[in-house]
């Protein structure tokens, strides 16, 4: 029996009973610190546990993450959930099964080798006994630590892991509504927050008379620059909020809020610096993307109740423990006096408005003791007032030598931070905290450290075999806009830049973009997905430029330590760029739920297509404008490409998160195809009609 290395989650939360319980007869409750974001993690974790316990998948109840009960596994981010929580639950379930069987052996006075279990019942030499997991569970010490000493099932014996399973949470969500937006607490008051139009905006005037005449049933709650509207009838509160411009005046301030600190520069040189080969065949190019909105279909929502000295919050946050601690700090409460319970929201792709809405509800609940409060954001606030994915740029100076090999590679990124989550850097980082007290704005801006996957630096290192890479990451601390983690963070633009440059260099070397990549690529699994995508798409080799239709390819390994993904895009360009088809070849190791993995990959690819073709926020005088789906359009049913996905699966490779792997390669494959089709290199995202016209007319 070999010991399994303990994942970080088990070092932090070693107690077996924290992960699994058999309290309800016939049911098995599992507790994870990773939350359901619409990515299907509850189903995948249930499969892993049902596998180890030899029970039907339908017996597993994945419990909502609750700061009073669940293990703390940090944020549900970075495509880590199956790797971290799945590994922890697998070991916990294996140990639970072992402890239950050992207890059965004592009860039956039999050797453990004669015992097996089948869907929760205990068999002795293949014959049923009257013992089952639930009767035995009372005799097991659930305070024992998970040691990792118990062998887990071999991959060859898996019957559930590796099979496609429908989402356990979907039927209830479809027929009855299972979202936080659907939650009702007795006597709850409906609230909307009138958000500051920009940071440091001062609430100059609230015309209470106007409001009382038009909306006598809507009350206000004001503290400093925080203003909430409250009422029993949600639609009335909604209408009053939509008319806020009629009775709320904000004081204009000169200039923009500027974070005070000078930028940090992070500089890394990988490999040995060689003197760059003098060459006429070099590129010096700048690639960029604009700010991107999370744009969830369900605007943020939260419920809260302050009762008996305890504040309970229901939130669709990605990190309920950090949210608990941050809200406690903001409201001067002990963390133990705050409880945050996760409730599913609409699709979440990063640090969106969920945490902000939770603080909104908490502030109001503290002022309305004993009364449950429900805060619902508007569509416009969801698009415009939640944190944004950071606008960034990357410059590449590179050259190819006479042998057609890359001889110089300099990569420089400039980006605002990709991580300003609750508690990051010791700051509250919640928008209403700033409205309550302007001194709560961060005084130092930092990005996610490389040890945590990096923010702007994510995938800044090219996966190719280059003699040296000179990489510098400059943190733009002068953005007045609140930027934070959005699906794949800096990897989206970095991979777009690297893979665009690879095509440009291939042209300089008179090479096929596929051959050019392969000649610089030793990573075996990377080569496999690249060749796979080329085969799937019947890659045509070098194509004539400027014909209006072309294929483009790109490849990357997410974070350079996660899943490999190669994409080929078939794109046509007339007045707009249209993606006709995408071929994706992926190596994400063992797939726990292949249907779920396919959803994650293809969903990521469509979202990346939307970002690439349509999404980018133009600031107005440094402020984020108010947007709706007309001013911030996303990809529609009529615009989505046909997608074909192939997984390279070697079950001996451990599972790697799949949710973010497509973002960079799909953007770059589209950019390469569109540039080829147009005969003009497109380096700035999004590739909108206006951008194309601007390029073609030289504007």
């Amino acid at each position: 029996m070999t010991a399994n290395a303990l994942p970080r989650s088990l070092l932090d939360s070693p107690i077996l009973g924290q992960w699994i319980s058999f309290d309800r007869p016939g049911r098995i409750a599992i507790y994870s610190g990773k939350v359901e974001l619409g990515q299907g993690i509850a189903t995948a974790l249930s499969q892993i546990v049902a596998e180890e316990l030899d029970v039907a998948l339908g017996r597993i109840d994945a419990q909502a993450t609750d700061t009073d009960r669940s293990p703390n596994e940090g944020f549900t981010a970075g495509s880590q959930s199956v790797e971290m929580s799945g590994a922890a639950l697998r070991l916990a379930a294996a140990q639970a099964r072992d402890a239950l069987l050992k207890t059965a052996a004592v009860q039956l006075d039999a050797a453990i080798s004669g015992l097996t279990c089948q869907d929760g019942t205990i068999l002795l030499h293949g014959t049923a006994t009257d013992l089952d997991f639930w009767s035995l569970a009372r005799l097991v010490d659930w305070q024992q630590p998970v040691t990792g000493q118990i062998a887990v099932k071999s991959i060859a014996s898996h019957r559930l892991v590796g099979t496609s399973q429908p989402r356990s949470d979907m039927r209830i969500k479809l027929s009855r509504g299972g979202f936080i937006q659907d939650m009702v607490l007795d006597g709850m008051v409906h609230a909307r927050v009138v958000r500051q139009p920009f940071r440091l905006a001062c609430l100059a005037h609230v015309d209470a008379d106007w409001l009382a005449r038009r909306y006598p049933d809507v009350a206000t709650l004001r503290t400093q620059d925080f203003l909430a509207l409250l009422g029993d009838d949600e639609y009335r509160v909604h209408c009053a909020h939509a008319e806020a411009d009629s009775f709320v005046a904000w004081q204009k301030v000169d200039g923009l809020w500027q974070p005070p600190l000078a930028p940090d520069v992070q500089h890394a040189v990988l490999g040995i610096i060689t003197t760059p080969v003098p060459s006429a065949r070099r590129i010096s190019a700048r690639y960029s993307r604009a700010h991107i909105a999370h744009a969830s279909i369900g605007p943020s929502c939260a419920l809260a109740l302050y009762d008996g000295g305890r504040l309970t919050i229901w939130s669709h946050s990605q990190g309920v423990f950090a949210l608990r601690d941050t809200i406690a700090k903001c409201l001067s409460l002990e963390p133990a006096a705050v409880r945050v319970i996760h409730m599913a929201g609409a699709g979440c792709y990063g640090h969106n408005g969920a945490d902000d809405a939770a603080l909104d509800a908490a502030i109001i609940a503290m002022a309305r003791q004993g009364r449950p409060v429900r805060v619902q954001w508007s569509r416009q606030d969801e698009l415009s007032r939640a944190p944004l994915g950071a606008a960034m740029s990357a410059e590449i100076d590179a050259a190819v030598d006479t042998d057609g090999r890359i001889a110089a590679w300099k990569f420089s990124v400039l980006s605002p931070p990709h991580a300003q989550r609750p508690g990051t850097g010791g700051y509250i980082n919640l928008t209403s905290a700033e409205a309550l007290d302007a001194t709560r704005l961060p005084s130092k801006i930092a990005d996610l450290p490389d040890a945590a996957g990096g923010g702007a630096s994510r995938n800044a290192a090219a996966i190719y075999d280059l003699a040296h890479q000179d990489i510098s990451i400059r943190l733009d601390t002068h953005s007045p806009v609140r930027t934070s983690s959005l699906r794949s963070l800096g990897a989206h633009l970095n991979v777009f830049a690297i893979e665009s440059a690879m095509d440009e260099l291939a042209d300089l070397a008179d090479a096929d973009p596929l051959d050019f990549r392969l000649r610089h690529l030793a990573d075996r699994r990377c080569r496999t997905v690249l060749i796979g995508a080329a085969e799937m798409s019947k890659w045509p080799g070098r194509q004539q430029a400027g014909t209006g239709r072309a294929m483009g390819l790109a490849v990357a390994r997410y974070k350079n330590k996660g899943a490999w993904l190669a994409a080929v895009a078939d794109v046509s360009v007339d007045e707009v760029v249209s993606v006709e088809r995408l071929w994706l070849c992926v190596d994400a190791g063992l797939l726990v739920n292949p249907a779920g993995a396919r959803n994650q990959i293809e969903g990521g690819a469509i979202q990346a297509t939307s970002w690439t073709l349509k999404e980018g926020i133009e600031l107005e005088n440094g402020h984020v404008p108010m947007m709706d789906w007309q001013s911030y359009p996303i990809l529609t049913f009529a615009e989505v490409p046909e997608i074909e996905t192939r997984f390279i699966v070697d079950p001996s490779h451990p599972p790697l998160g799949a949710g973010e792997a497509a973002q960079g390669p799909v953007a770059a494959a589209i950019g390469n195809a569109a540039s080829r089709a147009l005969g003009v290199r497109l380096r700035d995202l999004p590739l909108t009609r206006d951008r194309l016209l601007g390029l073609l007319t030289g504007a």
Partner: protein
Amino acid sequence: MTTATSFHLNGAPVTLDAPENEPLLYALRNRLQLKATHFGCGLEQCGACVVDVDGAPAYACTLPVSAVAGKVVTTAEMLARDSIGLALMAAFEAECAGQCGYCLSGIMMSAFSLLKRDRHPDRATIVAALDRHLCRCGAHGGILRAVERAAAEIGAAGALGAPG
């Protein structure tokens, strides 16, 4: 200022006291506690709130309750009690269609309206019927396959003479 409005909802008559201009969405969710119809924008831009009114999809987020007087309204809660609804639910499950699920009830109601009037829609017809809906998770492919699958199964059942 409330007015009584009578209409058929999910197979049964209902009378609602609500302000005349209150959208059906709020009446369904807050007066009748029917939570499957979702708020997404309130602007007829995303389709999360779509219900079926007299056989056609309608945005519940702007449609006043008073406008459905005497009409037949069907919401996603009805899917499990209708043969086309059941075929849709089974097909969505079989295709693992959808990701977060927030937009799905509205999408399924547009598909429901479509399949009620057209048992053999082609891909282009399905795309056109769903194009009023936004899905941010990028689950479009599975959703389109699921509606095609439901149509095929309903068509096959119809060919055998089973009740539609």
